[in-house]
């Protein structure tokens, strides 16, 4: 495979990625020998038990964690060798996160969380449609919660604001970390349905880290992790 071919067919790629970190005197290996590529628009589930390395891999893919060894390519460009500023710049306009606990900015209202994301992402690239924060919140069914602070939102509402905030970043890749972890099952299903629908509508690649088989089953590709290694990559 040529590099050019890789760049066009792969959105992001991990090559022999290893992540180790210190815990006191010990060195813990969180990820080992990870080779993974994600295609544009692809829906991948990272499935495994707690401590298997799902969240760390998700953070590596978004440039939040720099691998100890190996490299991460973003649209053919090395992401892991960039400095924090450049990685942030790469994230700002194309890689979005939805965390387990929503991680909304607590001193901003729902609307202001989106305004902040928009201010970071900047204007959409050519060909992408611009959405106002009100539109995006309406899209996730929270048109009436514009001025609500995170503390005033329910868990499901907060997660929907987080999704809307992710959309404000015009993502090509959405990384979801246990997006239903803090929600009851009915709300969780509604949130997953929403994410799937939006992925369809906006065409971004979706990587969901989960320990839940049912959640993983919604993806077209399931990558199983165990003890920091990919043990199974179930491509369609």
């Amino acid at each position, binding site marked *: 495979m040529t590099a050019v071919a890789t760049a066009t067919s792969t959105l992001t790629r991990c090559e022999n990625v290893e992540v180790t970190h210190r815990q006191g005197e010990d060195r813990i290996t969180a990820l080992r020998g990870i080779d993974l590529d994600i295609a544009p628009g692809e829906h991948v589930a990272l499935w495994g038990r707690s401590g298997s390395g799902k969240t*760390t891999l998700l*953070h590596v893919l978004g440039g939040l*964690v720099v691998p100890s060894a190996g490299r991460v390519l973003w649209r053919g460009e090395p992401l892991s060798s960039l400095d924090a500023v450049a990685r942030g710049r790469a*994230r700002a306009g194309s890689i979005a996160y939805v965390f387990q606990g929503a991680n909304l900015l607590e001193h901003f209202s729902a609307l202001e969380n989106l305004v902040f994301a928009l201010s970071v992402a900047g204007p959409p690239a050519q060909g992408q449609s611009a959405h106002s924060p009100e539109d995006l919140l309406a899209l996730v069914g929270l048109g009436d919660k514009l001025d609500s602070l995170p503390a005033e939102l329910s868990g499901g509402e907060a997660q929907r604001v987080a999704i809307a905030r992710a959309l404000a970043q015009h993502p090509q890749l959405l990384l979801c970390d246990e997006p239903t972890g803090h929600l009851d099952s009915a709300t969780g299903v509604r949130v997953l349905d929403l994410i799937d629908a939006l992925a369809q509508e906006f065409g971004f690649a979706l990587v969901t880290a989960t320990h839940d088989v049912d959640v993983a089953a919604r993806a077209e590709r399931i990558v199983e992790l165990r003890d920091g290694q990919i043990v199974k990559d179930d491509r369609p």
Partner: protein
Amino acid sequence: MRVALGLAATGLLRAPLRTLTRVLVLAASVALLGGMLVFVGNSLRTVAGTAVRSVPLDWQGPVTSYPQVLKVAAAVGRQPGVAQSYPAATAPLGGAAHTGPNGSSSAGAGAILAVPSDYPSHMRTLRLLQGSVQPGGVVLDQQMAATLQAQIGDRVSLRTGAHSRPVSLPVSGVALVTAPDKLFAPLNPLLGPAPAQPPANVAIVELGTFARLLAPGLPSTAQANPTSGQQPGAQTGVGWQVQVQLDPVPLSAGSPSSALTLATETKNRVERSLPGQVQFVDNLSDSLHTSAGDALYAQTLYIMLAVPGALIALGLAYLAALGTVERDRRDLALLRARGASRSDLLTLAAAESAILGIIAGLMGTAAGLGAVELLVSGGAHASTGRALSTAAVCVALAILGAAAARVGAIAAVLRTTVTESRGGVRRTGRPLWQRLYLDLFALAISGLVYWLTARTGFSAVVNPDSNPTLSLSVYMFLAPALLWIGATLLLVRLRGRLVGWITRRAVGPRARTPRGLLLISASRRAGAINRGLIVVGLLLAFGVNLGIFSATYDQQATVDAQLTLGADVTATAAPGVAARQDLARRVASVTGVRAATGVEHSYAYVGPDLQDTYGIDAATFTRATSLRDSYFIGATADQVIGRLRSTPDGIVVSKETIKDFSLNVGDLLRLRVLDQGTGHFHVVPFHVAGVVQEFPSAPKDSFMVANLAYLESVSHAGGPNVIFASVNGDPPTVAARVATATRAYGTKVDDISHQSSRTSSSITTVDLKGISQIEEAFAVVLAAAAMALFTALGIAERRHEFATMAALGAPLRQIGAYLWTEAAVVLGAGILLAGALGLALSEMLVAILQHVFDPPPDALAIPWGFLGALIGAAVLTTVLATLWAGRGLRRLALGEILREQ
């Protein structure tokens, strides 16, 4: 407890940087108090020592006869605590005559002092200029020697009465009698020290010679009516007295109060050991009593200025404790979940506070001692005992401070149930003081007290006639104390709502721009900003108040020193010398002297009141010293001096005299003036030319000012005895030149700088310079530390939020802007608060102490240099701390933080 100590130590070591921060902040807080304790202790010892040394004659015990005075003096001298005990006598001097190569000259009435030969070597009441006290000889006072034109070896004849037989004695020396007001004062132990006009001429005779040649012709006055001696020249017989000086070392070891107690105990013991033989007039206790009042005032002033700073500094410890509150809260919640009771948690908090307190207390002691050593002239003088007692106080305070901060920070955990505390539930509802509106109540009472003080002229400081003292009431410090408390509580109540309201008004209903987001974030974190504002703003207010008050205090101390001394430089000479040698002209010609004028200081009776009387040359006086309009009542300084100039027999009298004798300007006023030529008082007519309340070199009570020429024509005192000079350059330098130029005429030259450093019964009693330097240094350091802590706390509290922003791709500059905004808001609001509160507090303190400020200041003095340094330090630290915090943002472990829920 051992387990708790182990757990506490482990917890502290687990976060070494935060522990170090808490220790340093606590240490800085207690260092301020420790430094203050050391300084105040030293200051009180200095005040006591100065008071003891300033008394020329500690005790005077009248006795009935020569044998008795010898016996009692010997017995008193053997008592512990007594350094010197001398038999002495005073007697009237009817006149003296001397016949020399230039003819005969005579001196008028005066007094005889009889003392043993070695007396001048051990007592401070007189200073031998030439020769010595010898049996069979006489030592003449400098003025009398000049009048008689007598030298050592000449014979002079002394008469004890107008018609008594003269006794001829050879002159064995010339002396300066430095404490004539004490030596010749009427002695009545029941009434205590009483002021008296010193005699014009003094002859000092050896005691044995006096007993043999002069005393036999005179009766003893030991049991005389105490009022008999109040008028000069009224003494008709021999006053035998035992004169005593106490050992100054034990008296100077403590405060004036302890010195007073020791002196009184010693006096009682000595009197008890000689029952019925002697009772003393206690000049020392009189001085120490005044000093004890001054010391109490000084202590209160120190406390009033320093304690708010120290308390606010302990607020810093609370901020520092907040830095670890989340981790602490989780740890404690975990311990409670595992079965730890509230008392277990409190024991753990106590153990941690003890560890922190001991380390911080010891560090604070060292810093406090170091600050005093470095910043106060004279150093810390810390003996091992004093250092240990300071350390004990500092450690105790640090433990208490650490415990208060710790308990305050983890109060939620201690109050709530296990489940609630694990979930981080906080207390809701207003505390009792808010429901009772104690903050507004305190501010209202403060304002009321201030209004009463400023409008009605009420003051707890009183200056009784003829014995200026300060007495203190708690009332006087109620206004500033309640202003501090009320302002702090009001800030706590507001919880930054004002900041929030202003920012929301600036942003509008919804933030849609990055700038709007910054402001709206600040408005929603108004509580946290307010916490920083309370500490930073109040610390800056402490600094501003301290700086302004100290500057005003220094300014008024200088004004007071000039008022006390009379002019920038003064030269005192024996009567007659200044006129004969034209000293005013000689002084005026010295380089650096702008103008000079002669002033005659004498005494005159207004009815039964003996008052200081000043003869001035109205034409030259205002050029040689400064007069303020506030010194006079009903007219400006120029108007009063102009009236005096145009009225040869004019006299300016104090408002008490105007009131007591129902006088008006232009009224005739008959005074009894001492004619130095005859030694008797005679009635002289004057006309009131103005009303005065302050005058250069005049006492604080009643006095009068007349034309020098007219006064001289009726007193025959020999002209001016002091020269006032205004200078262009450095007063001590010019004073040294004046001293050199007039040394040949026996002048004593003084200057305003020397006067400022001297202790007297006025505001200059308290040297505020030392403690204000310590406090100003701490204010700068603590204000800087407060800003650094606030910024660091901002990072600690918002790390998850900032990590989320970074995860969204926000550049560090954009994230850092949130820190900069909050720091700027706290700093800006803190400076505004400090300006308003500091100014109000200074205004209050000055108004409350208006009777101490002598004269009251026209306006507050603003120390721009110090204020610039204070604000500059806060701004610089803010910039550095925020830059450092910005670098910390770069190192945030995003993956790790974002996993925290």
